[in-house]
C-alpha cells in the first residue's frame, strides 16, 4: 500500500469513529432545532460527508461540523421556506378528562408543543446555545461554532436558559 493509500485509510478510520460519535449529537441538535427528524438526519449526514470530503480533520472537527450543519439548516429554511413544526399551535390544548384512558400521549403532545413554542421564542443564537450545550459541547466549541466571544458564552447561556424557562412558564399559564 502506498503512503497515500495508508494515509487515506487512516483518515477514513478516524472519520468513521468521529461519525459514530458525532452523528447522534448532531441529529438530536438539528431535530430539536427544526422538529423534523428526516431533515435532521439528512443534514447531519451531509455535514459529516463534507468533513470527509475535506480530506483531513480541522483543528476543531466538532465545531467545524456544527457550523456546516447549522449553515445547511439555515439554507434549507430560507430556500424551501420551511415552516417549523409547531404541533397543534393554532388550536387550544385539549382539556384532559380524568376518565380518559390514555392520558400519556395527549399530555406529551401538548408538552412538546409548549417546549417547541418556548424554544421558538428565543433568538436563533440562544436556541443553538441551549441545544448545543445540552449535547455536551464545550464553551470553546460553542464560541467557535456560533462565532461568539468565548468569554461571553457563560453569560449568554445563563440568559438563554432563563429566557427559555420564562417563556415556557408563560406559555403554560396561557394554556391554562
Amino acid at each position, binding site marked *: 500500500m502506498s503512503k497515500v493509500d495508508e494515509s487515506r485509510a487512516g483518515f477514513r478510520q478516524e472519520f468513521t469513529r468521529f461519525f459514530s460519535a458525532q452523528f447522534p449529537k448532531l441529529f438530536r441538535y438539528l431535530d430539536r432545532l427544526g422538529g423534523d427528524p428526516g431533515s435532521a438526519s439528512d443534514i447531519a449526514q451531509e455535514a*459529516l460527508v463534507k468533513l470527509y470530503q475535506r*480530506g483531513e480533520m480541522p483543528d476543531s472537527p466538532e465545531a467545524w461540523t456544527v457550523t456546516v450543519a447549522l449553515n445547511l439548516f*439555515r439554507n434549507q429554511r*430560507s430556500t424551501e421556506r420551511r415552516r417549523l413544526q409547531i404541533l397543534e399551535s393554532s388550536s387550544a390544548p385539549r382539556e384532559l378528562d380524568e376518565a380518559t384512558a390514555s392520558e400519556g400521549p395527549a399530555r406529551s403532545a401538548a408538552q412538546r408543543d409548549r417546549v417547541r413554542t418556548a424554544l421558538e421564542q428565543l433568538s436563533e443564537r440562544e436556541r443553538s446555545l*441551549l441545544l448545543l*450545550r*445540552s449535547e455536551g459541547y464545550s*464553551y470553546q466549541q460553542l464560541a467557535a461554532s456560533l462565532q461568539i466571544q468565548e468569554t461571553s458564552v457563560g*453569560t449568554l447561556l445563563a440568559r438563554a436558559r432563563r429566557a427559555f424557562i420564562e417563556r415556557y412558564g408563560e406559555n403554560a399559564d396561557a394554556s391554562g
Partner: protein
Amino acid sequence: MHPDDELLQRRLDGELSRDALVDVQAHLDVCSECTLKLERMRAELERVETLLPHLDHDLPHVDPNSVLARLHEWLPGAAIVRDVPARGGRFAFVWETPWRRWAAAALVLVSFGGVAYAIPGSPLRDWVQSAREWLAGDDRARSRPSEDVGIDDSELSESGVAATDHAGVSALPGEAFVIRFESITLGSQVLVTLTDDPEILVQAPAGAAGFTTGDGRITVEVQKPGTTIEVFLPRHAPRIELRVAERIVFEQSGTRVTTDSSADATGRYLLPLAH
C-alpha cells in the same frame, strides 16, 4: 467581589480553570447570596434538561461505512479531494465535483446546442471535450502530484507543486475579516463563491499569487497577469470585506452581499481587480 453570571455559569458547567474554581468556591463558602444565585441557576439548568427531551424523536441508525460506500458509488469524483495546509503553507488542490457544477455544466451544454457544436472550427468542440474530462474526473487530477500518478519532475515548479495545481490559504472568518489584494496585474480578477463550509479559502494557480495571513486578514499579492483568484466565503459569516487598496469591492454581512458585480447563473461573483 461577587462572581458575575459568567463565572457562576462556568462553575455550574465545569468550565472554570482549577485556580478560578478555587477562588469562586472560596467566595461561595462565605457568601449565601451567591450560593443562592448558583442554586437558582442549577435549578434552571435541570429544568431545561428535563424539558428538552420532549422534543426528541428516535435516533435513526446510520452506518458511516454505508454512507461512504454510497458516496463513492454515486460521486466517484467526490472522494478525498482537497488538502488544506497548516497555516500559511502551500497545498495541492485537486478537483471537486459538487452537485452545483454538474447542474451548471449540463445547463451550459444544453444552451449552446448542437448547431454551435457542428460549426467547423467551433471552439465549442474543445470546450465540450474539456468539460467531459472534468465531469468524468481525471484520475491524474485527483491524486497528489509526484505520487502514484508518475508526473514528470520537470513539470514541478520550484515549490514542488505540479504546474496544474493551485495554492492558497484558508482561515476562519471570526466576527470580521478582510481579504486585501495588492500588486494588481493586468487582466487579473477574483471569482467569489459563497459556500456552506465554515472556512474562508483563497487560492490561485500555483505561482500566480503570494499569500500572507494575519489576525482577521489575508493579503494576496498578484504576481502574474490574467490571474483568476478564487475566493470561497462561508455563506453565514458575520462580516467579510474584499479590498483593492482601500477600495471595498465586495462586502458580505451574513447573507447580504454588496458589490458592483452581479451574480452569475451559478451564484458566483466575478470581480475585475484592475480599474
